[in-house]
């Protein structure tokens, strides 16, 4: 590693020289002879071998470097000046053409000839005479932070006044005023209210990911009081299913999988704790500012009960449960890549920005200079995320012990005793078999039997020791021993460093001097406080927009993960700010906001097309109707199970059943690869639980019981996406037509109906209530009776058809 550090140092030194010497020192020194040497010997090399990528004429300045002007090489590119006159051995250009550093060999298409290289060396030794005076100027523009603040998303959230509307009977919630006022501006009318059945199914699916039961339908329809809607909403918000659905929305922003990295199947055995943390956080309506602080810096938040401290540590799994290449053989590269992912994730999830773009250069569109990226990156570089393990080139993500209550400790002690007793018993058996085996003739049948038994016991013991009860662990971070600022890495290459940048936050979104980062800490807590502040112009806006999108299908800002200059502008800027303000004012309560929106008039609108508004605004940017939505993969599978009556409750827990020996392999510590897991055996009942609880793979397809995820636009856990794509492709239809899974559900549903009644009409009516949450129409009843005919088999066919139909697969 000595080579590395000297190389790094050299790059750092040239960075300093850039600052010290600045522009062209040698403009007047070019003697005529030197000038002619330059013209005849050097220019042809530059023209033929360099200009294609480094000249004004080609329009390319790769690495920020141009060579068709003296100022070009003097100022240099991303790595500083390309030439230090008279010092060929300190000139990056010479190093590059010598092919000295694997990362910066130039020209990339093939090495120059030895004579060409020596001409260039000679030229630099002469002081690099270059009579080309013209400075065609690639002066770095730099980023004007003040100008950048003019972009709407970086402006402080504005106080809003409720706009007046003509039709005062329409609004139910203040949000409705904003929508209606905008529609009335263009003489448009909102869609009429949808029927109550549709509303109930819509709200139930949106809040819980499951369809309403026939009993719930009856109860709501029978209740004609004004409070009926609120009662339903409160019931849904207080169900466990609410957290299960909304936790999944959040997981889409984290790259969560039950696997670490992508190479081999390395178990993220404790990942589930983060998933359960999310379910609990949504169900307990954890204030969003606290939610932010815990996920970025939960380990640094002092105080609280044992359970609260444990939850806060688990929450930092947010930073680690993404796609991390733990098999990278370049550990410096791995470290900066993990940091990059953490910066990008925080940027996307909380701020709606693509911060990763500023890793290699100033952000192309947004007022985010490269220094801001490294100010944030320094915080995560000071965070302990991975460590090298003693197997080949492998690393692992960090885990931390969780605090335990006394009750937990004593339960664990009991389990440990039992476990140890079992291991001791096996070891005794093994010893006994060994003794017996030794006495027998090698190769004899009896001896073979004993040897096989010993091998089997070895495996059991190895596995049992691996899964022994231990202090509960979470995949979580802590600060490194010596937090420090970070050097700019040239194009993300940790072996090519630029200047050092003090840790800090985004300048463009800061409106007061930020809290100082204590020298002995990473700065995550200060970053979390900066994000979870009412002064931050992005956090609340991004968050309420995500909630709006989940309920209405499209965000007020349609690019939900990107609020930068190239993102979409808000369709209703005042409404966005109104909701952001309301959200923060209500103690950052997500449930309160969701409740208000579900009870709004806007949420009651029908999804059907109104001719005038449709012609004026076919994309529904003004929200004149509800956007019908195809269910996401999880809702499709969960609804199929719910309707067939086979859905099993879960209270969370490990996704991977590592307690089964057959699910773990490669335990032998001599192995160059870490232990791997497989999915041969599931926990009892797990395959019938909600999709949330099934294992998530990053590398291969999602496992069999959750195959629907491979077909219906599940967010691949290598990316972070706040809004899933909705596509329609034949492979989905093939699944709905031919899969054994759906046939099984159809058959279970038919069985369920058969138990309800012998009467065909009663059965069909119940089927419609179960599948669609509404009564069957006369026309449908007639067609269905015709379809059923007399063959009992047709009941399964009918159920199958409904489970595959648009009305079932969509929330209208």
């Amino acid at each position, binding site marked *: *590693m000595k*080579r590395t550090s000297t190389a790094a140092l050299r790059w750092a030194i040239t960075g300093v020289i850039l600052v010290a010497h600045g522009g062209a020192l040698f403009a007047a020194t070019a003697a005529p002879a030197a000038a002619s040497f330059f013209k005849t010997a050097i220019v042809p090399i530059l023209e033929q071998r360099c200009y294609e990528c480094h000249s004004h004429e080609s329009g390319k300045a790769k690495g920020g470097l141009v060579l068709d002007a003296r100022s070009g090489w003097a100022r240099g590119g991303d790595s500083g000046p390309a030439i230090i006159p008279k010092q060929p051995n300190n000139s990056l250009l010479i190093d590059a053409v010598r092919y000295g550093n*694997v990362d910066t060999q130039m020209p*990339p*298409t093939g*090495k120059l000839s030895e004579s060409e290289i020596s001409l260039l060396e000679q030229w630099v030794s002469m002081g690099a005479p270059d009579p080309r005076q013209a400075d065609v100027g690639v002066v770095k523009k730099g980023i004007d932070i003040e100008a950048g603040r003019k972009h709407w998303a970086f402006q402080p959230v504005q106080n809003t006044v409720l706009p007046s509307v003509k039709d005062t009977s329409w609004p139910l919630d203040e949000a409705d005023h904003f929508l209606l006022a905008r529609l009335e501006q263009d003489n448009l009318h909102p869609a009429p209210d949808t029927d109550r059945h549709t509303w109930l199914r819509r709200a139930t699916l949106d809040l819980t990911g499951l369809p309403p039961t026939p009993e719930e339908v009856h109860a709501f329809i029978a209740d004609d009081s004004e409070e009926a809607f609120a009662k339903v909403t409160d019931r849904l918000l207080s169900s466990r299913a609410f957290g299960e659905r909304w936790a999944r929305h959040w997981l889409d922003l984290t790259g969560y999988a039950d696997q670490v990295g992508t*190479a081999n199947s390395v178990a993220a055995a404790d990942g589930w704790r983060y998933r359960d943390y999310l379910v609990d956080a949504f169900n307990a309506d954890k204030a969003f500012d606290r939610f932010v602080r815990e996920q970025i810096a939960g380990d640094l938040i002092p105080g609280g009960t044992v359970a609260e401290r444990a939850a806060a540590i688990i929450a930092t799994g947010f930073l680690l449960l993404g*796609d991390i*290449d733990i*098999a*990278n*053989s*370049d550990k410096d*590269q791995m470290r900066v*890549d993990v940091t990059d*992912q953490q910066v990008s994730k925080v940027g996307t999830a909380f701020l709606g920005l*693509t911060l990763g773009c500023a890793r290699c250069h100033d952000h*192309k*569109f947004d007022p985010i200079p490269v220094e801001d990226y490294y100010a944030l990156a320094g915080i995560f570089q000071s965070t302990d995320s991975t460590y090298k393990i003693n197997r080949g*080139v492998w690393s692992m993500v960090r885990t931390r012990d969780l605090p335990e209550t006394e009750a937990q400790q004593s339960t664990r002690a009991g389990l440990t005793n039992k476990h140890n007793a079992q291991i001791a018993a096996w070891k005794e058996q093994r010893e006994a078999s060994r003794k017996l085996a030794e006495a027998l003739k090698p190769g004899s049948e009896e001896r073979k039997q004993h040897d096989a038994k010993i091998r089997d016991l070895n495996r059991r013991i190895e596995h049992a020791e691996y899964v022994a009860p231990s202090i509960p662990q979470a995949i979580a971070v802590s600060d490194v021993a010596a937090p420090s600022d970070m050097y700019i890495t040239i194009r993300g290459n940790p*072996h090519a460093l630029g200047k050092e940048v003090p840790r800090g936050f985004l300048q463009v979104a800061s409106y007061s001097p930020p809290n100082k980062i204590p020298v002995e800490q990473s700065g995550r807590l200060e970053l979390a406080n900066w994000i979870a502040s009412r002064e931050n112009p992005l956090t609340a806006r991004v968050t309420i927009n995500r909630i709006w999108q989940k309920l209405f299908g499209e965000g007020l800002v349609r*690019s939900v*993960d*990107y609020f930068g*200059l*190239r*993102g979409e502008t808000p369709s209703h800027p005042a409404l966005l700010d109104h909701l952001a303000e309301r959200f923060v004012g209500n103690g950052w309560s997500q449930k309160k906001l969701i409740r208000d929106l579900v009870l709004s008039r806007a949420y009651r609108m029908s999804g*059907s*097309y109104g001719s005038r508004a*449709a012609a004026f605004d076919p994309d529904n940017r003004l929200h004149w109707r509800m956007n019908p*939505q195809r269910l996401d993969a999880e809702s499709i599978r969960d609804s199929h199970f719910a309707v067939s009556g086979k859905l099993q409750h879960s209270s969370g827990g490990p996704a991977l059943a590592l307690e089964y020996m057959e699910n773990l392999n490669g335990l032998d510590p001599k192995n*160059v690869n870490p232990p791997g897991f497989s999915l041969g055996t599931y926990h009892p009942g797990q395959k019938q639980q909600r999709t949330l609880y099934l294992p998530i793979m990053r*590398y*291969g*397809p999602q496992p069999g019981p959750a195959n629907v995820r491979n077909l219906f636009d599940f967010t*691949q856990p*290598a990316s972070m996406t706040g809004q899933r*794509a*909705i*596509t329609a*492709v*034949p*492979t*989905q*239809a*093939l*699944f709905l*037509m*031919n*899969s*054994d899974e759906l*046939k099984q559900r159809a058959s279970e549903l038919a069985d369920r109906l058969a138990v309800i009644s012998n009467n065909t009409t009663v059965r069909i009516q119940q089927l419609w209530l179960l599948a669609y949450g509404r009564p069957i129409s006369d026309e*449908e009843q007639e067609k269905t009776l015709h379809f059923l005919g007399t063959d009992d*088999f047709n009941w399964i*066919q009918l159920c*199958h*058809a409904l489970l595959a*139909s*648009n*009305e079932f697969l969509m929330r209208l």
Partner: protein
Amino acid sequence: MINRRHFLQNAACGFGGLAFHSLAQATALPSSVIHFPAKAKRVIFLFMAGGPSQPDLFDPKPYIQRKHGEKVTPPINDHLLRTGVDQFLALAPGAPVRPRGESGMMISDLLPHMATVADDLCLLRAMHADSKSHPTATMQLHTGAIAEARPTMGSWIGYGLGSENEDLPGYITIHPPADVRTYGAGFLPAAYQGTPLTVPKDDKTSAIQYLTDTQGDTNAQRARLQFLQGMNRRLLDRYQTEPQMEGLISAFEMAYRMQVSAPELVDISNESKPTQELYGIGEGATDRNGKACLLARRLSEAGVRFVQVTFDGWDHHGDIRTALPRSCDGSDKPVAGLIKDLKNRGMLDDTLVLWTGEFGRSPWSQDLSGTSPIEKHGREHQQESFCTILAGGGIKPGLTYGATDDFGFLPISGKIHMHDLHATILHQLGLNHERLTYRHAGRDYRLTDVYGRVVKEILV
């Protein structure tokens, strides 16, 4: 909008409707996206998963041969951890590598069939990439990017060129790698994702997942679908127009047709005996890969733009002298058979064939046990240089391009990065890699990111 719905309602058994992000919409890009006259219309990508050993197969070095079993001191990059290669023992090829054909292209005796088509191939000997571990290097080969789930080459090409056959997906991957991201569409619409296909073992297994109704009652299936689509259309009527509903209706129509068209296409029984033999079909070692390659030709013929065939088993960390010949045996005849068959049918001119691994292997040995004799050693991954083969599609036949240093480690001329390979493939299809972009999260993305150079030197 009304016309579109009207069309759908009248498309009784056809599926030609413009579905919401459906396959049929794969033609959605304006034809102006063709930036240059295309030399190739389609691509067949033969993926040698694991990293085939170029020092054994195509790029032997006298120096390594001479130093066999002795320590060498290559200019290695010491910020990389290594396992089992700390001795850097030179490992000579286990079989002779000789000049072939009129071109004199160097090909190992382990690939006797490929040697006979040497003059149709273009051998790139100074390829390089950025990652040394399988998943990330495989991602870079397929998507240009090491991390994230970006769109794959096949998706970009489908997005750029559209489909030639509306009865079939435009991008099919035969025996795909386990990582689904190798045929994913990333942020492009799912219509552009690869459809995985397996050569069926018998009549009862289906080539595409869920392609056949396992209960086999086609009448019941048809009746159920008619009832289902009836309900779907009545719902659509109530909503007048709704792209997601229309998309699903049309997906069902296409799926129904695929049930008929796909099994016919994957049925190779009507291919002549000589053709089957050409691919090694019926021989133990080559049957599976031979069928996959023959299918690739049939799918290409039927208008599938991008067909990938994956050949596993090139990751030879140990005992390479025993293991490599087996991998060669399984792939040599199918690959050479495909080239010959394409040529005989006049398809090689406008079909670009790509043969490559995600990286290559080191000229020095690797011994994970630390105790084996040199003859039992394998080779470590090497992204610094490796070999790739192109054929057809306007690429110079018989050309050997690029060279590496005396070790066979660092490129010294004709260096081609993975991004350059992508740029060149797109170029041959008439697509400018800098202009084939898709706006996602506020940024215009490309297959080649901000890199890539069309390697004009290898073009006809």
